[in-house]
């Protein structure tokens, strides 16, 4: 408390240079006022009464204006008493020894009480300053506690340091290569004008303060403070003080240190949170990679084994195989190769979408166009199945990448075909909704368990992983990636009467461009 006290005194003495003159005036004016009040009653009052009044005045000045004005008031009192009240009147001489003793005792009491009053005043100010600092620290730590990013912590730290110490501040951290670099996006209106990275580097490697007003490299315009965390020096704070006293007074140092400690703790916290997040992501991506590997090894190996085996048999036993058997083997090779080709394409598509390589080539299309081309791609597969299309009339053109949208519909229709018993119809519903154009593909298969309706869009997820249906669990993930790239949404539900229903919404983006009407009529 003591160092803060003297620091406060120092601070106050700077601020109150103008005020002390005013206080001194009251130190003289109040005794003179009392003299004027006492003067008419000089016949009634004894000398000791008058001295008591004067003492009262000194107390008042001491409490209100401080030590020096009160001593000034004591001296003025002595002079006024000697001149106006102590015989001989209108002379500074004092003839009666009683009055002389009284005056001396009054002055002594006045000085002592003034000193006491001054101490009380001072204690009050110290308490006030302490409270102000505590609340400033509280505000700092509260804001820091809410920060989640390193940049936020740096911004808050810079702002609070500036508010408390009047300095312009820059945080300097090592980059990935260990080179120090300053954080450029300082939220402060006036960024630090100069900072010397060499000095910063010295501070960083030695873990000691340097720069302006310190013992090391004191010709620098800024002060460099190391940011020391539990795991070593994490960076350097450069402060360019507008007033050195506010930063480097021995009493200010612990306060500054507290500030810096708070900031360092916050930085450590956000950094470790970030590391934890990275670690989680890494685990997730490894899990994904593992499921990719197991999926690929299962789904690509099997057809590959068949192809290699059939081709070998054809190669070795060509002469011993009859025509029918040869034919069978060739058909098997063809079918399995097709299956592998489909899977490979899906894996590559997903990789391309994931890598963000896909640029949407959005143009205005009528919905029936990409639905039609999707159906045509599945012509052979859907040959024996009834596909009903319920399309609202007068649907507006939509802005889509037709190739990708066609892929979405191919995947959905292919799923509907795979997972519903042969002979049952597939329905396609197309309508305009407030959410945008809605396209739904519905089958009459077993549907999707409610708790899995979100998961079916996850990569490599299959409702029944051991089912005989070939698949890799990527089709719906591709659908979701494409629909989301269009700012749309895709959902899986079960429909009334049984079966799965996949519904996608494509937002209406602006009005389709108009087409100039034809001026001439119909030809025959």
């Amino acid at each position: 408390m003591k160092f803060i006290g003297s620091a406060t005194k120092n601070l106050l003495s700077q601020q109150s240079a103008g005020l002390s003159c005013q206080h001194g005036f009251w130190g003289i004016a109040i005794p003179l006022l009392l003299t004027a009040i006492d003067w008419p009653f000089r016949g009634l009052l004894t000398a000791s009464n008058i001295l008591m009044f004067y003492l009262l005045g000194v107390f008042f000045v001491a409490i209100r204006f401080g030590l020096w004005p009160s001593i000034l008031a004591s001296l003025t009192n002595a002079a006024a008493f000697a001149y106006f009240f102590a015989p001989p009147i209108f002379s500074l001489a004092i003839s009666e020894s009683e009055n002389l003793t009284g005056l001396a005792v009054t002055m002594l009491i006045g000085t002592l009480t003034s000193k006491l009053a001054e101490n009380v005043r001072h204690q009050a100010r110290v308490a006030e300053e302490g409270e102000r600092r505590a609340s400033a620290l509280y505000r700092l730590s509260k804001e820091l506690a809410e920060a989640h990013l390193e940049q936020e912590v740096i911004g808050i730290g810079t702002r609070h340091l500036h508010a408390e110490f009047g300095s312009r501040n820059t945080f300097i951290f090592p980059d990935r290569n260990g080179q120090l670099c300053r954080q450029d996006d300082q939220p402060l209106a006036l960024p630090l004008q100069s900072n010397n990275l060499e000095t910063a580097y010295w501070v960083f490697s030695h873990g000691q303060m340097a720069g302006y007003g310190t013992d090391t490299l004191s010709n620098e315009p800024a002060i460099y403070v190391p940011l020391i965390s539990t795991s070593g020096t994490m960076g350097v704070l450069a402060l360019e003080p507008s007033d050195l006293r506010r930063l480097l007074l021995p009493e200010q140092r612990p306060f500054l240190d507290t500030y810096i400690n708070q900031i360092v703790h916050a930085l450590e916290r956000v950094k470790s949170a970030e590391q934890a997040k990275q670690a989680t992501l890494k685990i997730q991506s490894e899990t994904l990679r593992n499921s990719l590997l197991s999926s690929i090894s299962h789904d690509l190996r099997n057809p590959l084994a068949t192809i290699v085996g059939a081709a070998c048999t054809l190669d070795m036993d060509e002469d011993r195989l009859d025509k029918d058997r040869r034919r069978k083997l060739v058909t098997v090779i063809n079918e399995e190769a097709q299956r592998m080709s489909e899977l490979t394409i899906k894996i590559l598509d997903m990789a391309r979408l994931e890598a963000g390589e896909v640029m949407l080539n959005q143009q205005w299309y009528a919905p029936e166009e990409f639905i039609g081309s999707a159906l045509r791609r599945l012509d052979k597969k859907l040959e024996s199945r009834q596909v009903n299309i319920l399309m609202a009339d007068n649907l507006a053109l939509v802005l889509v990448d037709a190739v990708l949208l066609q892929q979405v519909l191919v995947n959905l229709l292919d799923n509907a075909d795979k997972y519903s018993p042969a002979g049952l119809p597939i329905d396609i519903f197309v309508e305009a909704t407030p959410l945008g154009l809605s396209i739904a593909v519905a089958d009459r298969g077993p549907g999707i368990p409610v708790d899995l309706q979100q998961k079916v869009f996850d990569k490599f997820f299959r409702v029944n992983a051991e089912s005989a249906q070939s698949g890799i669990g990527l089709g719906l993930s591709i659908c979701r990636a494409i629909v989301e790239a269009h700012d749309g949404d895709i959902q899986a539900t079960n429909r009334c009467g049984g079966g799965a229903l996949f519904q996608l919404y494509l937002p209406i983006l602006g009005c389709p461009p108009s087409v100039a009407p034809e001026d001439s009529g119909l030809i025959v």
Partner: protein
Amino acid sequence: MKPTSLPLLLLIEDDPQFQMLLSTTLENHDYQVIAFAVGREGLLAARTRQPSLLILDLGLPDIDGQDIIRHLRQWSDLPIIVLSSRNQESEITLALDNGADDYLTKPFSTAILMSRIKALLRRVTKAPSGVNELFQVGALKIELTKRRVIVSGQDVGLTPIEFKLLSVLVRHAGFVVTHRQLLEKVWGAAYVEHSHYLRIYMGQLRHKLEADPTRPRYLLTEAGVGYRLCEEEPI
């Protein structure tokens, strides 16, 4: 067998296995094949050997396939089929706009390749005017000079633009026509970016000519590339 009478096909494909497969298959279907792995040699052969058709892989080690097409088109009408990987719609469109006649994306079935080759060679052997007066597929019948369009025996009324669009497709029946080519030929060069015109008129045409416009049998969409008027009724 007279080998000289067999049509000569030029194949430019840099993957040796794939080249071998195509050569074998084509020879098996009574074509003569000369194959090259490098674009320059292929281009030279196109000049000296006078092949009937070129099968060109777009990804070559030495020259860009697009350059080969542009180069060839300066002096030759040689029919060209380009082979490309999937997800290369823009490459395909560019190749078609540069003058290639058709395309196939890998992997493709050799049966489709054979039917495309046949269709292209047939077009070359047609009359120099190139266009059959009467076009017929399934229930659709089009008489170009009389400007008559008949579906299942019923006359269908088309607007001038609809008819123009249809006639461009008829002239290239069986082959893909890119969005750009259609826009340029029907609306003019200033409209090549106005693809929505094409979508709207194609929609109108389908509603008039197709039994089910969502499952067209004649006016087929090649997503991201263009349209194809089906020449033979799908089996």
